[in-house]
């Protein structure tokens, strides 16, 4: 959808008449507020916006957006979104999913939507737990987590959503935090501007069933040390001013170095962030940065241009009609052999 910056809209216009029902303190409230705040700035009229979800706490989202919406089947939102974009490419289609919906039952659908580079925004709320069914482990839960379906501790290795998206060949990959309004709004705008599948992992706290898993990157005090804010063209430096640290790569393996106050990070060999390399290997190394050994990167990991699926689909339709003319059903029915009965 071509955005129209002249279109004057307000946040209120994107707020539906439904009572919002998540548990008190849920990170989803903040995500909803930020999405509703960003929407008017995108310049897309409400009737051209569609939110598609599957099943889970995050999947209540479409009810609360005063736009078109689909609350669909568990894990299948990417498939519905593909159908919507293939037949109405002019619509702005947002997929809202979670670590359970998107990466367990929906992992297969998510993979194929991302690799096709369909021009949609995928918002994956990651709280590392099944909230709606009251606290079973999810595909992103840490090894050893004790839940009611893993009473002795989980022995599954988690999948990292960013690494998954890189493996699928996503052309835009970002991570943001539920409570960091400014950062999230910026990422949402970037995701919308991107032509192709924009995959955004949103770290979200579930205060009831998995409280505090992102606390160090959410908390304003510990955030500087626990997270690494990715900015294109800037060195991978983090930490408070008096205690800065940087990420260096040696033989492709990342490690942390301490920086003195007057050190030039680039001279010290700190990697300069680049969103645009064609090869995804750099983003892949960034995705391996996990706490506690490394800060958790937030921001845009990768943004590259590739033709979108629906554009290529339209090209095929155009070339077929150019070659054979616009179809005529009646002519088709009466061509070749016909029978009279």
């Amino acid at each position, binding site marked *: 959808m071509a955005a129209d910056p002249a279109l004057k809209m307000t946040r209120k216009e994107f707020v539906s008449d439904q009572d919002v029902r998540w548990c008190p303190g849920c990170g989803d409230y903040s995500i909803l507020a930020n999405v509703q705040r960003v929407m008017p700035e995108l310049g897309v009229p409400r009737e051209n916006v569609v939110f598609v979800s599957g099943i889970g706490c995050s999947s209540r989202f479409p009810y609360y957006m005063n736009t078109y919406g689909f609350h669909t089947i*568990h*894990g299948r939102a990417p498939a519905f979104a593909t159908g919507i974009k293939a037949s109405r490419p002019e619509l702005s289609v947002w997929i809202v999913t979670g670590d359970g919906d998107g990466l*367990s*039952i929906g*992992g297969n659908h998510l993979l194929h939507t991302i690799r096709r580079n369909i021009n949609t925004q995928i918002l994956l709320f990651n709280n590392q737990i*099944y909230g709606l*069914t*009251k606290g*079973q*482990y999810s*595909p992103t839960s840490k090894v050893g987590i004790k839940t*009611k*379906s*893993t*009473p*002795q501790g989980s022995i599954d290795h988690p999948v990292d959503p960013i690494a998954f998206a890189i493996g699928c060949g996503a052309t835009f990959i970002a991570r943001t935090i539920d409570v960091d309004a400014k950062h999230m709004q910026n990422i949402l705008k970037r995701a919308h501007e991107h032509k192709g599948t924009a995959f955004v992992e949103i770290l979200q706290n579930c205060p009831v069933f998995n409280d505090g898993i992102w606390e160090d990157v959410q908390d304003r005090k510990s955030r500087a040390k626990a997270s690494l804010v990715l900015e294109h063209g800037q060195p991978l430096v983090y930490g408070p001013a008096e205690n800065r640290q940087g990420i260096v790569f040696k033989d492709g393996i990342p490690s942390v170095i301490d920086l003195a106050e007057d050190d030039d990070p680039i001279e010290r060999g700190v990697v300069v962030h680049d969103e645009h390399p064609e090869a995804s290997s750099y983003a892949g190394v960034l995705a391996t940065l996990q706490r506690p050994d490394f800060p958790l990167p937030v921001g845009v990991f990768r943004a590259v241009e590739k033709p979108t699926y629906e554009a290529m689909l339209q090209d095929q339709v155009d070339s077929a009609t150019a070659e054979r003319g616009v179809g005529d059903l009646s002519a088709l029915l009466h061509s070749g052999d016909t029978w009279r009965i």
Partner: protein
Amino acid sequence: MSRDLMEGSEAIARAAIDADCRFFSGYPMTPFTELLENFAKSLPARGGVCINAESEIEAIGMAWGAAATGARAATGSTGQGLALMQESLSEISRAEVPLVIFNMARGQGDYYQATRGGGHGDYRLLVLAPTDVEEAVYLTQLAFHLADHWRHPVLVYGDYLLAHTRQAVEITPTDFGERPDKSWAVDGSLGGTGRSRNVNSIGMQKGTKGIDPEAFWDRLQKKTERIEAAEVRFEEENCEDAEIVIVAFGTLARFARYVVRELRAEGVRVGLFRPISLWPFPSEALDRATSNARRVAVLEQNAGQMIDDVRLSILGRVPIVSIGGISTDAAGFGIGPLLDAEVIRARVENVFQEGAS
């Protein structure tokens, strides 16, 4: 032995484990979740494995694999999750793999799904519908026995109330006699044939050339007919002289039984017929049980599904009316106003009045 107070979910899991179930897989969904959680809690200590799979499709795939190695295995969900398992259920029937499936349904709207199924081809699942926790303990164990005996999937149809009602029950292993031989299982042994084994759903065996689908399907159909003849189960109460016979299954039948006893005490000639096996449906028994009735009242918590089997049993001999219907709570879990003896009693009395006029 003592009776312990426990939720249906716990009782069913314990009964299954006592019946030597050593593998369970599932995916959380209300009201099935607690069954999964109870298996997760209890199976490891008994040498078994419980996996919280990433979807119902995966769960039944895992359970099929485990059952094919000769282990007693089970899976389950609610009807919504069972919908995802239909492909596997029809294939498992044809692969002749014994598997137990629990549907902790949101009401009784999955009767067609259970008894007709949504999979491809000619197949039927054995379906057992317990009316309370105590019966569920027995039928769960029976399900494992029947699955092994017939090498066929057996579905246990429960619901929210069965899963979540606490009842004092005694879990005692039922002895069903000697276990059938599982020489077909992929268990790492040579089993006397000297050949590796192959589990598939197209009737192909190692050492035979090609497949003969017609002969294979015909053999399965004959097995289906033998099951139909051998595995009919039902309960009837006060039907002999009943003017009105109520037909109900599962949890709702428990309410109906209460109403029937209450009315009988007041001298009203009403009876209850309760299919325990939904497939095979107790058609002949129902036909006999209603031989003196002037009305048959079908009480089911759906828009009218079992009523088809009642019609097929009675073939127009007696007028059949529905006194059930859609009935649920705001969450859609099937805890509706119909689960109330007074509501049911009023509907039964209404049938008597209609019949009189």
